[in-house]
C-alpha cells in the first residue's frame, strides 16, 4: 500500500501521452486527494490527463494539451472482496494482475483478459480494453457494476452499487467505459466476478486461409458448445490459426473439445494455451487497429485488409485487430472503413508510431450521435480540461 500523500514532479518525455509531454505529474494516494487535485486544476484552468499503468498511453488520439498527468496508481487498494457475493470493490490504480491473484485465492476471477501488461482497472475501464474471453464473460460494460468518479470540478460522484442487479439511476459506469478520461477520472470500481473454472481444454486448428475462420466461428457460435474464447491469429490473405478454449468441469471440457474437433473438421487437442494466446498483432512500428463488426462478417472484414496484414480476432464476437505498416496506414484506413461499413464495421486506431500519429484520423466516422456526445462532454467538462482532443470528433 502506498502512503496517502500526493506526490508531484515535473513531467518528462517518458510521461508523454501520444507524444505530448505533461508539465507536471501528480500522483495522489486517495480518492479525496484526486478530488483536491482536480479542484485545484479547475481553479487555475489546467488540463488533466489521467493515467494508470500506462499500458495504453499510446492508445487514442493525442491530447491537445496536458498540464497535469494524473497518475492514479496510488489508488491501489482492493477495498472489499465478498466471495459469497461474487463481487469486489477495488480502486482504479489496482493492477488487473494483482487483483486476479488475490481473487484466485478464493477461486474467483474478474472476466477481463486484455493482453497489455500492467494494466490498471481505471485504465482498462477508460480504454474499454478486452481480450479473448470476452466471448464468455463480456466486457467492462457487462462486468462493471459500480463506479466512483471525480468530475472535472472535483465533484465526487458514484453510480451503480455493490450488487449485480441494480437499476437505480443512470448507469454512469457505461458512460465512463471507453471514454478515455474525457469525462473525469475513474477512481474506484466495483465488479461482478466469476468462479475460476476447474478444467481447461484447448483445440488448435491451423488454417491455410485465415478467412476460413469466418464460417467456422459462425458454426461454433450456432452450436451448443460453450467455448470461453475462439481466438484467431494470422495474416490477411494468408494462413492462420484458430484456438478454441474450453473452460469448465473436466467432463465437460473433454467432451466439448472432442465435439469441437468434429465440428471444425480437425484440430489438435491439448491442455495448454499457446504462449501468444490473445496477443495483439504486429509490433511497435505498425499502426494497430481495432475493428468491430457484425460477428458473422469476420471473413469479409479480413478480406478488406491489405494482404499480408498481421491480424487477430476474438472470432464470434465481432472484434478483430490488425497491424498495418505505418507507411500504409493513412491510405489504407479510409478504404478499410468504407469497405467494412456495410457490416456496421468500424476501425479505430489503438496505437500509432510517433511519425504517423498526427496524420491519422484515429476514430473515424462516429455517426449521427456525435452531436449528442458533444453535448454530454459539455455537461461533464464544460471547460474542456479533461483529456481534451483524445476522443472522437476532437472531444
Amino acid at each position, binding site marked *: 500500500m502506498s502512503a496517502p500523500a500526493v506526490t508531484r514532479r515535473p513531467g518528462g518525455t517518458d510521461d508523454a501521452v501520444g507524444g505530448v509531454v505533461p508539465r507536471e505529474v501528480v500522483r495522489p494516494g486517495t480518492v479525496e486527494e484526486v478530488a483536491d487535485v482536480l479542484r485545484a486544476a479547475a481553479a487555475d484552468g489546467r488540463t488533466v490527463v489521467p493515467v494508470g499503468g500506462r499500458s495504453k498511453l499510446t492508445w487514442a488520439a493525442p491530447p491537445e494539451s496536458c498540464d497535469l498527468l494524473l497518475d492514479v496508481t496510488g489508488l491501489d487498494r482492493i477495498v472489499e472482496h465478498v466471495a459469497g457475493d461474487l463481487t469486489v470493490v477495488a480502486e482504479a490504480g489496482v493492477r488487473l494482475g494483482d487483483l486476479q491473484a488475490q481473487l484466485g485465492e478464493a477461486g474467483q476471477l474478474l472476466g477481463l483478459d486484455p493482453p497489455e501488461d500492467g494494466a490498471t482497472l481505471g485504465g482498462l475501464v477508460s480504454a474499454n480494453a478486452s481480450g479473448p474471453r470476452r466471448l464468455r464473460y463480456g466486457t467492462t460494460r457487462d462486468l462493471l457494476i459500480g463506479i466512483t468518479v471525480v468530475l472535472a470540478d472535483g465533484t465526487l460522484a458514484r453510480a451503480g452499487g455493490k450488487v449485480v442487479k441494480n437499476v437505480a439511476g443512470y448507469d454512469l459506469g457505461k458512460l465512463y467505459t471507453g471514454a478515455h478520461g474525457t469525462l473525469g477520472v475513474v477512481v474506484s470500481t466495483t465488479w461482478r466476478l466469476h468462479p475460476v473454472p476447474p478444467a481447461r481444454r484447448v483445440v488448435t486448428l491451423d488454417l491455410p486461409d485465415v478467412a476460413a475462420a469466418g464460417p467456422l466461428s459462425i458454426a461454433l457460435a450456432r452450436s451448443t458448445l460453450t467455448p470461453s474464447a475462439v481466438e484467431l491469429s494470422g495474416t490477411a490473405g494468408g494462413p492462420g490459426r484458430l484456438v478454441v478454449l474450453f473452460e469448465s468441469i473436466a467432463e465437460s471440457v473433454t467432451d466439448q473439445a472432442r465435439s469441437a474437433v468434429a465440428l471444425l473438421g480437425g484440430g489438435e487437442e491439448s491442455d495448454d494455451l499457446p504462449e501468444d494466446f490473445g496477443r495483439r498483432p504486429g509490433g511497435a512500428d505498425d499502426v494497430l487497429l481495432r475493428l468491430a463488426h457484425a460477428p458473422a462478417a469476420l471473413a469479409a472484414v479480413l478480406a478488406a485488409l491489405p494482404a499480408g496484414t498481421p491480424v487477430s480476432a476474438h472470432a464470434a464476437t465481432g472484434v478483430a485487430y490488425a497491424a498495418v505498416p505505418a507507411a500504409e496506414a493513412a491510405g489504407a484506413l479510409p478504404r478499410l472503413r468504407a469497405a467494412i461499413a456495410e457490416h456496421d464495421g468500424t476501425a479505430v486506431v489503438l496505437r500509432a508510431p510517433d511519425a504517423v500519429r498526427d496524420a491519422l484520423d484515429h476514430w473515424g466516422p462516429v455517426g449521427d450521435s456525435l452531436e*449528442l456526445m458533444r453535448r454530454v462532454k459539455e455537461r461533464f467538462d464544460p471547460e474542456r480540461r479533461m483529456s481534451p482532443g483524445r476522443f472522437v470528433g476532437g472531444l
Partner: protein
Amino acid sequence: MTAVAEPAVSDRTAALAEALRTAIGTERVLTDRTQVRTYECDGLANFKVTPAIVVLAESRQHVVDTVRLCSEAGVPFVARGSGTGLSGGALPSADGVLLVMSRLRSLGPVDADNRQVTVEPGVINLWVTRDAAPFDLAYAPDPSSQLVCSIGGNVAENAGGAHCLKYGFTVNHVLGAEVVLPDGEVVHLGGRAPEHPGYDLLGAFIGSEGTLGVATELTLRLIRVPEAVQTMLVGYHSVEDAAGTVSDIIAAGILPAAVEMMDALAIEAAEAAVSCGYPEGAVAVLVIELDGPQVEVEAQFRQVEEIARRRNAFETRIAADDAERGLMWKGRKSAFAAVGRISPSYFVQDGVIPRTKLPEVLAEMKRMADEKGLRVANVFHAGDGNLHPLVLFDDAVEGQAHEAEELAGDILELCVTSGGSITGEHGVGSEKRMKMAKQFTPADLDTMQLVRCAFDPDGIANPGKVFPTPRLCGERPGVRKGEHPVQAAGLGEVF
C-alpha cells in the same frame, strides 16, 4: 399515495392535439376523457394521472412528429409500452402527451448467423424468443411479465428476469437502438457490431426510464439455446435452509441459469392461481435451473441435489419434460398477480441485497412486518439477491394501506443499509424517486442528471421520474441557484 389529476384541457394542449391530428392522423390522437383515462396508470395502479392526450403511434415518423410537436409546444411526453411497469415509470404527465408504442410491433427477420434481430419497441418480449426458436436461438432477458411486456419498456427499465443471474440484463442484450431525442432528432446508438467509437450512450440510455428519449427500433442479441436445461423444485421447512442452499451452490463455483425462491405465502398464492403443485407444507421453495452442455448440467445437477440434501430439503422434484418445467415456472412467474387471491391489496416491492445478507435481511423484514401486524409474501431472485417482498394489506381496514406503504418503504431502506439497492429491475419511476436520496448523495444525483441535461435540456421526456429533484440544466455541477423553467412550468419540484 394516490394522485388523481383531472385533465386540464388547457389552450396549450388543445392546440397541440390539433397539430398532432394534422401531423399523424385524427384517429391516432385520443382526447376523449373516458378513453384517455384508461391510460392513467401502468402496472402500478395506485399512482394515477390522466394524460391530456394519448397518441397511438404506428411508425417512427409518428413518434418523431409527436416528440417534435411536444418539444415545440413545451409539453411533456411520456412513452409507454404495454403498461406493465411496477414503479409508475409510464405514469402520464397531467397536461402532457402519453405516447403509446404498442402498435410499433414489427419483428425480424432473425439474423441467425449474427445471432441478432431488429425489432420495434412495441414487440412483446416473448415474441422474440418465439421467432428465434426455429433457429435454436432465444432472447435471454425474461421478466416475469414476458408474455405481455414490450421490448421498449424492457429497454426503458433495463428489465431483468429470472435468468439474469447467468445471462445478465436487458443492457447486456441490446446492441443498438434508434432513438428519438426529446427535441425530435433521430440518433442511432450502437448497432449490429459489439463496439462503436464514442461514448457508450446506448449503455446510458438503457434503463433511463424514458427520460432520455424514445426508442423506435432495437437490435437485440440472441443467445444459442443451450444443449440441456434441467430444472428442479426443492421444498424446505425453513427459509434459512433455502438461503443456505443458494450460498452453497455459489460457493461450489456453480453458476445456475436461475435460482428463484418463494416463501409460504407466495406459494399459497401461486397454488391458488395456477395450481402449480409445489411441495405441500413447504415454508420455502427454490426453483433451480441449470443449463449448458449436457454433461456439465448433469454433473452440476447432481452436485446441487447433494447441496440441497445437506441443507435439509424435504422434497426435490426434477422436471421430466418441458411441460413440468413450464409448470414450475408458471407458479413463480404468476406469483405477483396471484397474491391478489390471498389478499385484497398489496404492494409489490423490489429491492436488492448482497446475496450473503439474505438470512439476516429476511429475519429483519419479518420482525418489521410483525411489528406492524402485516404479512409479507416473498418472491425473489435468490441467486442475485433481488427481493420482491409483497406487502399484503386490506384497504377496508382503516390506516392499513398507509402502514403497508410505510413498511414497503422501510424494507427498501433496509436493502440500502445492507449494501444493496432500492430497485433491481422494476425501476425507480414515480414510486421510488424520493428513495433515491437514501442510496445516492446529492452530488451523485446531480452527476447523473448531467446526462439528462445533455439529452433533454428542457426536461420534457418523462418528467418527474427517477430523480427526486430535477436537475437544473442551466447550472454547473454541484451548484444550484434560482428557479429553473422546469420548476416554473410545474413540471418538476424541488424537495
